């Protein structure tokens, strides 16, 4: 089991491909506040003063208010709808008396929370985060690759900042077992009837066939009728101790580096 944990090191991002299929932030608004750094900054102040108490400081949810980031991924609201919710309230959430401009600043901030991390200002030192990512303490590259460098057991992170909101990346690093979606990344050991044993990740699996990438990164197409025994893990193979293993500043910097990984961005990992 120790060996297993060592093979599969950093993998909470397993949850993400599933999330991504359920829609992206729906931006139908032409309001100039959306994407405007000044509006987002003004919205941040308003949010921390009036909204964070219920929704959490990064919109990740609190005791009384829902997680705005995840919610928007599953059931996206348009910018105009968010505007109306802030203006009029909903369920236990009270109405506000903010001006139109202030309300749009808030919408711009919420939009930035749910947009890809690479499109938003992100705190932290990406250069320091790069050293953490590729270093032994975090060991991310043992399992994950960026632009062809690194391991092949965990999901490719070349576009992680270009496809995921910061809050989702953060959650995947510090609470990798929170959402257990392993489609495409299930840790598996396969004992074949031929006597051969293969270890790796199941990219896909049904009652009839299994598509496995082994620890050397080689793909195997396996028929289940040829399998004697299949050993699976009940949780993520990614270490769950990053919140302890890394300091808060190190996590912030690591996130800043991950946020920059964008296949459409100018920043390259190497």
């Amino acid at each position, binding site marked *: 089991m120790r060996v297993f944990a060592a093979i599969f090191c950093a993998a909470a991002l397993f949850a993400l491909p599933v999330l991504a299929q359920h829609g992206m932030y729906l931006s139908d608004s032409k309001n100039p506040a959306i994407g405007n750094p000044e509006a987002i900054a003004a919205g941040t102040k308003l949010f921390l003063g009036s909204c964070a108490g219920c929704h959490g400081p990064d919109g990740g949810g609190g005791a009384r208010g829902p997680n705005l980031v995840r919610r928007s991924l599953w059931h996206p609201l348009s910018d105009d709808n968010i505007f109306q919710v802030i203006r009029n309230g909903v369920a236990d959430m009270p109405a506000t008396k903010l001006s139109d401009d202030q309300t749009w600043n808030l919408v711009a901030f919420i939009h930035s929370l749910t947009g890809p991390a690479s499109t938003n200002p992100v705190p932290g030192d990406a250069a320091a985060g790069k050293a953490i990512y590729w270093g032994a303490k975090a060991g991310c590259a043992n399992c994950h690759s960026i632009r062809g460098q690194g391991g092949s057991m965990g999901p490719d992170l070349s576009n992680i900042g*270009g496809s995921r909101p910061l809050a989702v990346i953060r959650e995947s690093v510090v609470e990798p077992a929170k959402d257990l979606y392993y489609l495409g990344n299930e840790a598996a050991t396969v004992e074949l009837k031929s006597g051969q044993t293969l270890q790796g990740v199941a990219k896909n699996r049904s009652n009839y066939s299994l598509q496995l990438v082994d620890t050397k990164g080689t793909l195997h197409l396996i028929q289940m009728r040829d399998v004697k025994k299949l050993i699976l893990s009940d949780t993520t193979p990614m270490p769950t101790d990053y919140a302890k293993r890394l300091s808060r500043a190190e996590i912030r910097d690591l996130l800043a580096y991950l946020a920059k990984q964008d296949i459409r961005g100018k920043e390259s990992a190497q």
Partner: protein
Amino acid sequence: MIRSTLFALLLAGAACAQVTHEEIAKGAGENWLTYAGTYAGWRYSPLQQINAANVRNVVPKWVYHVPGARGLQTSPIVYQGVIYVTAPNSIYALDGRTGRLIWRYADPRAKANGANRGAAIWQDKVYFTTTDNYLVALNRHTGALIFNKQYADVAKGTTSTSAPVIAKGKVIVGSSGGDGGMRGFLMALSADTGEELWKTYTIPAKGEKGSETWGDLIDWGGGATWLSGTYDPALNTLYWTTGNPWPDYNGSVRPGDNLYSCSLLALDLDTGKMKWYFQFTPHDTHDWDAQSWPVLLDTEIQGKPRKAVLHANRNGFFYALDRVTGEFLRATPLIDKVTWAKGIDAKGRPIELPNIEPSAEGRWICPSVKGATNWMGQSYNPGTGLLYVLTLEQCGMYFRSSQQPQPMKNFSGGGATEEGGQVVLRALNPKTGLRVWEYPMTGLGRMWTGTVSTAGGVIFSGDDDGNLLALDAKNGKHLWHFNVGEMLTASPVIYSIDGKQYVTIASASAIFTFGLFEPAESITSPVIEIKKK
């Protein structure tokens, strides 16, 4: 210690089985490693497990519905049982036996619209291009990104639709967008890094040789290279065709032959230097891109052995040239009704009839704007010695607009309509250019599907009603068909895994795969153990 050892193993993994130049050059077999199956453009498979005698026992094996797909044009690449299929800005790796998804890669932020006609493979990477001209290289096992590099600017009217062709570590990419004003080119990029190795424009720059065949619009002259070409390893020469001059229907603003539009170019693989060119349709005004790929064949023509290149052209004629020198050898009619030219003269130039230019009122011309054939593609079968080409008997009205041409505004200097029409699959004798047999189809002339033929004496082709069909390669006799329930807009390929032969084709929205009937087998689940962390 354990970790560092494992890390070393992970890195060593990159050294496992790799697709080599020799494997691609060998041509199709178990694998299908380049767009047309062979560098020579034959779309031919030596597999014969499925043959003319047993093809009636072919049944569907699996279907993969490509999420959100419409009008798929992908020609699959197959290696070691894995099928790589593309949709615009995305690529999917599927298990060739079961159709199960292994991985997918999507780039939804790509700018520009357009089709995608397929992937390429080299060593341990698969490649495809985005609509906005990024070459994307992925780990073929995992789909992880190795690199993506933009090689052309979409703001200059260039997009990408064709499958790259890889020869000796050079990724050859073409250019699309010729109907809206752009300057066509062919490029070679490094398969290892995506760096540009050479770029050859299909339209000369002002002042260069050939520029005297244009007016002022030469900068936006078109000549796109929107379909994969072919390659002769012995001559180290690429054979690529070019599209229409721009604006498509208004020739008065571009006086001259408009070189090198509607042409076949022979380029040196190492340098991109043009060895020779041959223009099929000088000063085209009917959007007759010379698009279908050139078929390379050593055969006897007019009694002499030739290293020939064959080309079925949209303009209604079937050409044979010498591929070493570019010498015109012969042209024969590809379809029954051609009303714009009396024939092709001894030098290869069309003998044009009067009143063929599009006009404000419209001109009725055959073939239609879709052409006598298009990009569906053809196959050559060395067993029968025949070339199989999908042809379209159709006429249409061509209009000219007197508006000032504006590049990149979806302006083509006029327009065209087509009416009625019939698709006919024709078997041609490369030695004579004459028809040996034909298979007329019902339908509305809307298909965009092509052929593949095998050593088993079978041609698989799409028809104009959404059927994949099998014909006897010798005589065109119908042997089998299967209705996929929607239009076919791509061409089939053949592969095998575990000694079983398959034929696979993209329909408008899904990948359909067929093989010989086998009785179902009961599958017992293995012991499954769930380990606690």
